[in-house]
């Protein structure tokens, strides 16, 4: 058995173990749920009894007031009636105490639920035309995304996200997408360390994994995941400070991060999760503003980052290093049934062959009509054919993508999406994994995608 197979088998065992533990936890949760249900029924019965007794006491008090003469005539009966009223009052007090205890018990039970695991599941299908570099001919098993957010004490919090999915070759993989521990200094500033979603623009941190959260089936190509041909690092390993503070009527939001810079290997971005391959760390900043009032729902901002990116051949030898520099802006609007995100990036990358400019961006617009949300997205990248960084990446050539689709919300936690995409990619002289120059012809293709996703 090869080392890779052993690791894969080990991961599979771990997953099965985790699922067994989760199943055990579910059984415990079921028992607690039954107990809570029983307590709720007891509470309901007690409340009904209190109502009845209260009515009865009121009735008796009315009767006592309305018949003073009769009471005088039969003076012996009044003390007896008073005694009955007193008994009822005592019963009500005892019941009230019982209700308080039951409510207290319910409250404690509801708190004792451990750390909730949330997540997303999606399944789908896709078909594409002949020139698609990733030919699609049928159904796919999608992905399972699990995340949990343990909080320890008043200021320490954490986030762990695990994704199980199938790649283009049909191989399943388990990726620790995020593992980050944070310390809340104040409501204005939280410090994080670990592996996190690189905080550029809006899309990457708002949706990321989690198909049910995402407004469309596909992500904008430029900011797609590293292993799916993304052109900038969607994840980072390092430290990250983020927060917000009041500014005028709105809020100023800020993110600053320092992380291992990515490298290019096998025509894909590697985010160097274990250690960096050079001393050129990735440094980035994202500054945004969210106004209040009539403009509530709007976000605007500027972002930028820089890093030294080593480009490696298959044999591990360093082919060259690119100084990656990006600056750009973004805006988003989420309100009044509209969803809009626009992001723009301008690159000024330099390597041995000189300094070159490139740019990329996208605009996504959706409008909700009841349960339906039709949407459209335009993506465009104009990448300099002399930029060694982009030339070394599988999708590093200029393109335009037109995406149109519709989302149907079955309920708050599940949705169906249908999406059509037309893509055009320019011809380019790219560099393969061995470091040789290859001519990639122009391509034009269409895709039709379908997805059913849930959140839990």
């Amino acid at each position, binding site marked *: 058995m090869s080392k890779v197979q052993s690791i894969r088998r080990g991961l599979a065992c771990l997953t099965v173990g985790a699922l067994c533990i989760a199943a055990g936890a579910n059984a415990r949760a079921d028992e607690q749920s039954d107990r809570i249900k029983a307590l*709720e029924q007891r*509470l309901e019965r007690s409340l009904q009894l209190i109502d009845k007794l209260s009515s009865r006491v009121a009735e008796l008090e009315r009767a006592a007031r309305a018949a003073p003469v009769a009471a005088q005539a039969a003076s012996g009966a009044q003390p007896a009636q008073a005694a009955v009223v007193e008994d009822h009052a005592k019963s009500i007090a005892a019941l009230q105490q019982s*209700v*308080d205890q*039951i*409510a*207290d018990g*319910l*409250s404690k039970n*509801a*708190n004792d*639920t451990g750390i*909730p695991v*949330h997540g997303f599941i999606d399944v789908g299908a896709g078909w594409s035309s002949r020139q698609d570099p990733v030919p699609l001919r049928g159904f796919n098993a999608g992905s399972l995304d699990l*995340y949990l*957010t343990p*909080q320890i*004490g*008043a*200021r320490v*919090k*954490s*986030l762990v996200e695990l994704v199980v999915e199938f790649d283009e070759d049909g191989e399943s993989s388990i990726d620790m997408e995020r593992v*980050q521990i*944070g310390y*809340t200094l*104040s*409501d204005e500033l*939280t410090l994080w360390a670990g592996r996190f*979603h690189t905080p550029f623009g809006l899309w990457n*941190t*708002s949706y*990321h994994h*989690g198909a049910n*959260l995402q407004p469309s089936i596909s992500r904008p190509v430029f900011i797609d995941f590293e292993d799916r041909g993304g052109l900038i690092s969607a994840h980072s390993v390092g430290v990250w400070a983020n927060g*917000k503070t009041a500014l005028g009527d709105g*809020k100023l939001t800020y993110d600053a991060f320092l992380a291992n810079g990515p490298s290019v290997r096998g025509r894909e971005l590697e985010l160097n999760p274990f250690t960096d391959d050079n001393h050129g760390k990735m440094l980035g900043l994202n500054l945004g503003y969210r106004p209040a009032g009539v403009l509530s729902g709007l976000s605007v901002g500027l972002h930028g980052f820089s890093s030294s990116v080593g480009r490696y051949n298959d044999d591990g030898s360093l082919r060259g290093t690119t100084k990656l520099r990006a600056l750009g802006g973004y805006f988003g609007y989420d309100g009044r049934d509209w969803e809009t995100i626009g992001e723009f990036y301008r690159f000024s990358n330099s390597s041995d062959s000189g300094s070159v400019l490139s740019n990329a961006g996208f605009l996504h617009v959706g409008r909700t009509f009841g349960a339906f949300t039709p949407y459209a997205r335009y993506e465009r990248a104009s990448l300099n054919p002399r930029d060694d960084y982009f030339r070394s990446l599988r999708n590093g050539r200029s393109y335009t993508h037109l995406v149109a689709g519709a989302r149907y919300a079955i309920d*708050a936690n599940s949705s169906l999406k249908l999406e059509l995409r037309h893509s055009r990619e320019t011809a380019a002289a790219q560099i393969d994994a061995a470091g040789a120059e290859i001519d990639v012809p122009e391509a034009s293709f269409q895709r039709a995608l379908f997805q059913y996703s849930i*959140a839990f």
Partner: protein
Amino acid sequence: MKLGVRALVVLSWLACAPLARAGEVVAHPSVLLKISDIRDVYLGEKQLSGDIRLVPVDNSATQEVFLAAVLQTNARNYAARWRRKAFRDGISPPPVKGSDAEVMSFVRSTPGAIGYIAGTAGAGVIVLDKF
């Protein structure tokens, strides 16, 4: 004359309307908050009161009214917003209690707790606002 009576009725209703409150926002005595902070607490934007972590709880019996009156949203949008918030910022949405009694019991016994009830608050909690 009829018009005058109708106008009087409408004016009386308008004058009384602000006084017709649906419930109260209650908190553990350890909580120090401004009324304007309540919205931020329930949207996960404010997490601390001094050194104490704030622990908001929802009340399923009164949630609809509270969300409409205080957060100007509905249950669906509120849940969607929290899903995004939890996924991005690593914080958990408020746990949901089933009745005023449960909320009162939780808030009374939990430092940093905030809740809302349809009735009138009893002893052991402070009233932050009425809605």
